[in-house]
Structures are given as structure tokens and as C-alpha cells.
């Protein structure tokens, strides 16, 4: 856990959530320049297996550029990405996905006109001979959704466009867990959700975490981030400015993190 700059006086806390050995994801001095502009400046952080890390920061802090580099949408100017201890160079989002990084975007994850089980196995269909093994795919989808806690779905034959936003997130998360991805990358998973649904999504994230997957959540809402994560990392102006282990979600913690985000030192 090489937490970096404490330049603005934010307290640095070495995280105590250390699962086994090698982190699910580690970023070493990741930098991204666009011409003269340094969007991301020597960012370091790591996510252990079975750990939820929330990446916080205001608009333009560099969060989405970090996400793009991890998901393979763009490549870093310098620095290293280590997945499960192995150094990775992603040429595109496909190579990142094949390496074990499941990125769940708000509206880029599912095909709205397809039903639940077809979405679940899209691109990784089960077959018996040349035919789709519909029975097996339906059964496995049913089982995974039950495991992750999505039990109120009326039917796995219903179209995804008829599901709520929370249910759609659950389906995407369940899919990442089922296909044994190493890292689950969630970009603003609760941005368009009701309070009730947000809590549900947090439950699903917890199930994913319990399965041993590393989870990186990008968020705007500090309180939500503190609720769901084991650690929070705060970015500002392209740098990591603070790292906190979340032990309690009280007002002090909230103020401290918000101060780091906005750059007003405590």
C-alpha cells in the first residue's frame, strides 16, 4: 500500500485490510499526459482481493482517466498496472476484459432488448454441440442471481429494459463474479438510483467482495463511498491526495474526506 502525497496535510493512514498476499490490482506511478496537460500524475494505489476501494474526487480530478487506463480504453504515458501481481499492458478494453477486469458502466453494460439470461451469457454462451444450451444458461443465471441476492426478479425471461437500474447493476456484478474476474470496476454505480436501490447495489457489491474479487468503485457521494468501501482514495488535480481506511462512517470521517476532495485541509 504505497499511499502517496500528503501534500495538503491530509492524514495518511496505512490500511489494515490486508488480505492474503498479492493485491488484485496495483498501480505504480501511473501517469497520463495529454500534450502539456498532466491528467494523472504518478498515482499509486492497490486493491487487495476481497477489498472494496472507493476512488473519490471532484470533477476533473482524474478519476475517469484512471478508470480508462485500468479498463484498457486508453494507455498510461508511464507507470505500471499490475493485475494479480503480473504486469499488464492493455492494448484495448478487450484485452483488459480478457485479463480479468470487469468494467461495469452505467449504460454500456447490458443490451436492453435482450432478456436476463441472454444478457448474462452474451459473448460467453454455453453450448451443447452447435446449439445454445438454453437450459443450463437459464439455470446458472437463476442460481447466480439468487446467490448475489437478486431474488425479486419476476422472471429471467424478462427484458433487461424492464428491470430497474439496481437490478441491472446486480446482473452486471453477478456476471463479473460468475466469470471469475479478478477486478470489478464500477463507474458511478449508484448515480441514477433511488436510496432503496442504492442499498441493494451495496449488498451486491458486498457479495462480490465476499467471493474474493477486488472491487474499485468510482463515486461522487462521499457518504455512500464510506458506506460501501474498506478504504477510500482521494484524487485531486490528477494526484492522490489522501488515503483512508474506513473504520467508522461518522461525521468526522465524512468531513475529513470531503475536505480532502475539495482541497480545504482539516
Amino acid at each position, binding site marked *: 500500500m504505497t499511499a502517496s502525497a500528503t501534500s495538503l496535510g491530509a492524514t495518511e493512514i496505512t490500511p489494515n485490510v490486508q488480505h492474503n498476499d498479492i493485491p488484485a490490482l496495483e498501480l505504480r506511478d501511473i501517469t497520463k499526459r495529454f500534450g502539456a496537460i498532466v491528467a494523472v500524475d504518478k498515482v499509486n494505489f492497490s486493491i487487495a482481493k476481497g477489498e472494496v476501494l472507493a476512488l473519490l474526487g471532484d470533477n476533473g480530478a482524474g478519476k475517469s482517466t484512471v478508470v480508462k487506463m485500468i479498463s484498457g480504453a486508453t494507455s498510461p504515458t508511464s507507470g505500471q498496472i499490475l493485475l494479480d501481481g503480473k504486469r499488464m499492458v492493455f492494448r484495448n478494453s478487450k484485452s483488459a*476484459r480478457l485479463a480479468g477486469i470487469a468494467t461495469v458502466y452505467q449504460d454500456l453494460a447490458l443490451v436492453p432488448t*435482450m*432478456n436476463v439470461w441472454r444478457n448474462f451469457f*452474451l*459473448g460467453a454462451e454455453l453450448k451443447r454441440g452447435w446449439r*445454445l444450451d438454453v437450459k443450463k444458461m437459464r439455470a446458472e443465471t437463476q442460481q447466480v442471481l439468487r446467490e448475489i441476492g437478486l*431474488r*425479486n426478479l419476476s*422472471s429471467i425471461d424478462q427484458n*433487461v429494459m424492464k428491470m430497474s437500474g439496481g437490478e441491472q447493476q446486480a446482473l452486471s456484478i453477478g456476471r463479473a463474479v460468475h466469470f471469475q474476474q479478478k477486478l470489478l470496476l464500477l463507474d458511478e454505480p449508484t448515480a441514477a438510483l433511488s436510496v432503496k436501490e442504492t442499498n441493494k447495489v451495496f449488498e451486491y457489491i458486498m457479495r462480490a467482495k465476499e467471493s474474493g474479487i477486488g472491487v474499485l468503485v468510482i463515486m461522487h457521494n462521499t457518504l455512500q463511498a464510506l458506506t460501501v468501501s474498506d478504504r477510500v482514495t482521494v484524487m485531486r488535480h490528477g494526484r492522490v491526495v489522501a488515503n483512508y481506511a474506513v473504520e467508522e462512517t461518522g461525521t468526522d470521517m465524512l468531513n475529513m474526506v470531503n475536505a480532502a476532495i475539495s482541497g480545504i485541509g482539516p
Partner: protein
Amino acid sequence: MSLGKTVVEETSTGDSDASEDTVRAFKSGGITRYISARMMAVIGMIIIVVLVLEITSREQLLTGLNIGGVLNASSEIGFIAIGVTALMIGGEFDLSVGQTFVASGMTFATIYTSVGVFPAIIVSLAIGAAIGMLNGFITLGFGIPSFITTLGTSYVVAGLILMVTTGQPITAVTLPKSFSIFGGYIGSTSIRWEVVWWLGLAVVMAIVLHKTTFGNHIFGAGGHADASRNIGVRVGMTKMALFVLCGMFSAFSGIVLFAHLGDIEASAGSGLQLEAIAAAVIGGTALFGGIGTIYGGVIGSFFLGVITVGLVLSGASTVYYELFVGIVLILAVALQAKTEGITSFVKRAVGQRSWIAEHAHGRSTDTTQAGSAQ
């Protein structure tokens, strides 16, 4: 609550909000139920049109002889409608099918005497595939909407046809016996073998669409290309294959036309592209992709066949055909769009909500698996 039983499958829980969620899911409707209702509306409309034409034709339409005629007429547009429906589900259009039809049919008509019937079929299909591939390359390579691409290629191919034929029709002096595999009548019926080919190919294509990985990717590519790409579907390859298939279905239709008519001319394909789209849309294929069925396309083609033959039998001039198709097309789509509202109105009026729910759901499960294949 009785709804719960029919809708929840192996997912019932002890949660207090389970039934609430179930009701919500039910209200929001399950597109599956919606689609099957849409198809019911279309089938209901066909029945009404058939009955009207039966009356105006003085009970001539539903005779054995003329039912055969309807099927024969349906199959010509039917071949093309299979390809167009699949392509539209994949999120693309093909306005060049009419010209592909003519180009391939003419190629077949020109070369079968010298190279033999079977090789001529292969060459003609290859021409259809090549035009489809060209459509695919331009559309996918340059990111041009296929509506525009295929409009362009249809003009190009039409121009080439006129250049080569100088507008002269190609006529067979005598039809070889082997042509009867398409143009011959089945036993003593009035149904041509091409109807069997049509329905057979429709079944094959439906299986491909709903039961194979390729088919699954077609629905994905048409429903949300970016999401599908994101999860690893080769969207470009899938669409390319669809363009090629659509070209081949059009080519096949051209071959079949020549096989029973013994004559093909440059204008034979005019309007076919829009008829094929009409057939697909009447059958419930969404204009924006991701939704549709092959059997819908078959039903749509059948509808057009019924109108063609029914109007002739009614003594109406063929000038009424297009007028009639236009009205029917708009009615069919309007009906489909409003089906949900109509069904819920009927439900409230009849007050047998759970009965309808049970039946609609029973049917919709089929539809999803074999039909709409979401």
C-alpha cells in the same frame, strides 16, 4: 396473490416486499407479454383482411387453388424478407435487395445453359453475397448508415444492370426440367416447391437466430452495439455476415423467380426492398434493431401475398395493391404500438386480469425462447 404464482419462477422469497416487486414487474409488463400481444394483433388483422377479401372475391380466396396462389406469391418476397428481417434485427437496413435480386437472377438466366444449373446457382448466390459484402464493407468501414450505403449500391447495381442488358429482358426458350425443384408444383396441388424452400429456409434461419451463438450476437449487435462490443461480441463480423446473408437470400429469390417464370427484366426488382421491409415491420421487427422474429417476417410476407391474390380475385385493378399495402402497413404498426394499451383496457373492462395474465404469460415464455429471443 395469483399473479405472483404465475410470474415468479423459482425466485419466490419470504421477503415482505416480494409481492410488491412482483406486482411492479408485472405492471411494467415483461416485453415478452407485449410482443406476443403484438403478434396476436397482426394475426387478428390478417384474419380480418382475409375475410374481407373472401367476401369481395365472392368466396374465391379460400379455395384450395387460390391458397396455393397466395403461398406462391408470398414466397417471392418471403425469401428476401427472411434476410431483411435478420438484418434489421441486427440493426441495419438493405435497400439494395431488389437490385441484388435482379442482378443474380439475370446472371443465372444468362449462364445456366452454358455452365449447368447447379454451378449457375452457386455463381448467382456468390454475386448476391458479393453485393452484401460490399454493403457491409462500406457501412462498417466508413461508418456510414446502411440506409444510405445500400441506397447508393442499389443505384450502382441498377445502373450496371441497365448497362449490361441495355434494358432487354432475358427469356428462356424452354425451361429445363431441373427448374421444377423450385418452380414445379407439389403433386397435384397448386403450391410450388419454392414455398417449401421458403418455409424450410425460414425454419433454418429461425433456428440460427434463436438457438445459436451467432443468433444471440445478432440480437446483441442490434439491441446495443456498444454494450455488446464491450462484453466481447464481434459486432462488425456479425453485421457483415448479415449483409452477406441478406444478399444471398435476395439472390436466391431472383433464381427462383426465373426458374418458374422463365423471364426476368431489369425492372423486376423495383419496390422489392420496401416490400421486404414492410413484411418485416408488419411482422413485428423493430426499425431500430434488437427486436423481431423470423416467423414475423414470414407472416408479413404471407400478408402481402394475401393482398396480392385477394385483390386480383376481387376484380380490383392491381393499381390498388400499393394503396392497400400502405394502409395495412400503417394499421399493423399502429396496432402493435397500441397493443399494450388495448390489452390493458380489455383487461379492465373484462375484469379477468389474472386469467389474461396467466395466458399471456404462458405464451410469452415461448415467445422469448423461440420467438423474440431476447
